[in-house]
């Protein structure tokens, strides 16, 4: 039984907030983008953090490269090496990037930049034109790399006695120096009140 609370949302109201994109292209706005125009925009708005080639400046995220590293000890997960769908890239740039000014780019600009990031990942050629139709046709390298959660995947049992051989236990402690412990180690400084202050404190060690 409906309670009749809330107003009917108008198509116009919804359109302004309905920013999501799906792998099948649903949600993509009109317009198109080119690698070429994307380059300039990327260098203007993105490269300070993500690097000229998507390699990531400092500790900011890496956007390109890392192909075939997913089984390595330290995999590099990028748009090219890990992401299953190109639509996610358009969607994410449009909703969240550039980091300090989300929602500041036009739909057209997002098309250009998306094309360029795909190009940096060697997914499209430099003359590729990205639009409503072509985006959904892009097959990403790792598209088939995902499968649905199979958990519970380990079956422990409620053993109460002789559950392990005491002589076979391998006990490993922590690496030193990476835990922020200023707040409870005797004689150490009090906890920092902000992220920046804590960084500074760490760096003084």
């Amino acid at each position, binding site marked *: 039984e409906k309670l009749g609370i809330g107003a009917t949302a108008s198509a116009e109201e919804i359109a302004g*907030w309905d920013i999501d994109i799906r792998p099948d292209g649903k949600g993509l706005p009109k317009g198109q983008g080119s690698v070429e125009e994307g380059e300039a925009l990327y260098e203007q708005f993105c490269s300070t953090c993500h690097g000229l080639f998507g390699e990531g400046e400092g500790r900011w995220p890496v956007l390109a490269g890392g192909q075939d590293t997913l089984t390595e000890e330290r995999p590099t997960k990028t748009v090219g090496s890990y992401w299953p769908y190109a639509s996610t890239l358009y969607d994410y740039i449009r909703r969240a990037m550039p980091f300090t000014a989300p929602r500041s780019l036009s739909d057209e600009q997002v098309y250009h930049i998306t094309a360029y990031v795909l190009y940096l990942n060697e997914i499209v050629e430099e003359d590729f034109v990205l639009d409503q139709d072509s985006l959904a046709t892009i097959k990403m390298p790792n598209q088939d790399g995902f499968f649905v*959660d*199979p958990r519970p995947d380990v079956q422990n049992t409620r053993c109460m006695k002789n559950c392990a051989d005491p002589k076979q236990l391998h*006990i490993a402690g*922590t690496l030193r120096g990476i835990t922020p412990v200023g707040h*409870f180690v*005797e004689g150490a400084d*009090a906890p920092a009140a902000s992220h920046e202050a*804590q960084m500074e404190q760490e760096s003084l060690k």
Partner: protein
Amino acid sequence: ATTMAGGAIAKEVNTANLPPNEPAWGKQLGHGVVENPYGHPSEYEKHVVRRTVPWLTADSIASISMTPLQDLKGIITPNGLVFERYHGGVPQIPMEEHRLIIHGLVERPIIFTMEDLMRFPSVSQIKFIECPANGGMEWKGAQMEALQFTHGMLSCCEWTGVPLKVLLEEAGVKPEGKWILAEGADGSHMSRSIPLEKALEDTLVVYAQNGERLRPEQGYPLRLLNPGWEGNTSIKWLRRLEVGDKPWYHREETSKYTDLMPDGRARKFTFVQETNSVITSPCPENPIVKSGFLEIEGIAWSGRGRIKQVDISFDGGVSWVPANLKGLVLDKALTRFSLVTKWDGQPWLLQSRAIDETGYVQPTLKQLRDVRGGNSIYHKNSIHTWKVAPNGGITNVQIT
């Protein structure tokens, strides 16, 4: 005030305040009522705060801070100490200017004001929220010498709001509707695809925590709450719910919140926070301060329901004894366990192992690693070990 290794910072005691003397505070008046019309903790509890691990993220604005579980009792996390996780900083949203739109595969798209939402019959439930990255820093090896950092992406509150099911009924979901996209109003516009099944089962749209309105860090004025599921799905500053026939595969369910396996393939839609537990006393921040009587205490939780049993091992998992559950034992809520014993300097390898009402037994680290390797980042719910030194100090170790 202990001077033991790993102990709390020692404090000078002024004996003039001890009996037989009348202490200073007995000879004078304190401050009056509404001096702090919204109160705060004692000045002697300034160390009980959320903390972050600076090297985890590039910036504090897309980051996480942890709950000081080592200082908490019972099952309720006070609002000021609920862990924070967000990707565009904390927005300051005036209640009157917030809206929730429900649209997509529905008969009537609706736009709600906060006042509208608060007119629906409300429900209040005590539920934990846990980041699936909780403990994630420990996949490859023990790293963190503090309970706050090994398990602190975890909190438990009494949440009040409206079942999402009620709101969906108001809009009328079309038969093709199978998934819901939930989206936030903050700069990150965080979005996640939620199966309709969950939404109809127990998802809530909440506006209050522990009685008062949501804290800004927790989504004021409105957030989603998917009980027992990874915290990331409980979208904060919730402004939009779109019903669709397929999932969206957005950044937070592809690039992030997928679990990479040793063969290079990855699990997706790993929603449930499986059964977990940890001993909160003793722990690195709470060393054993005296020989003799000792209560071993901790918390257990399961995203699949109620905790049924917790066992304790003193020898690194060779043998186990049952602990007692104490206080309320609620569905998808923190549950306290306790074992009363004696300690006289034994070098224990302390562990807890929780079992939930589905019969699932919390796994060993080796069991998890054998299946998942060391790169899956999320959902590390294995049995945790504290090493007890002869002086009562506690360190974090891993046993394989």
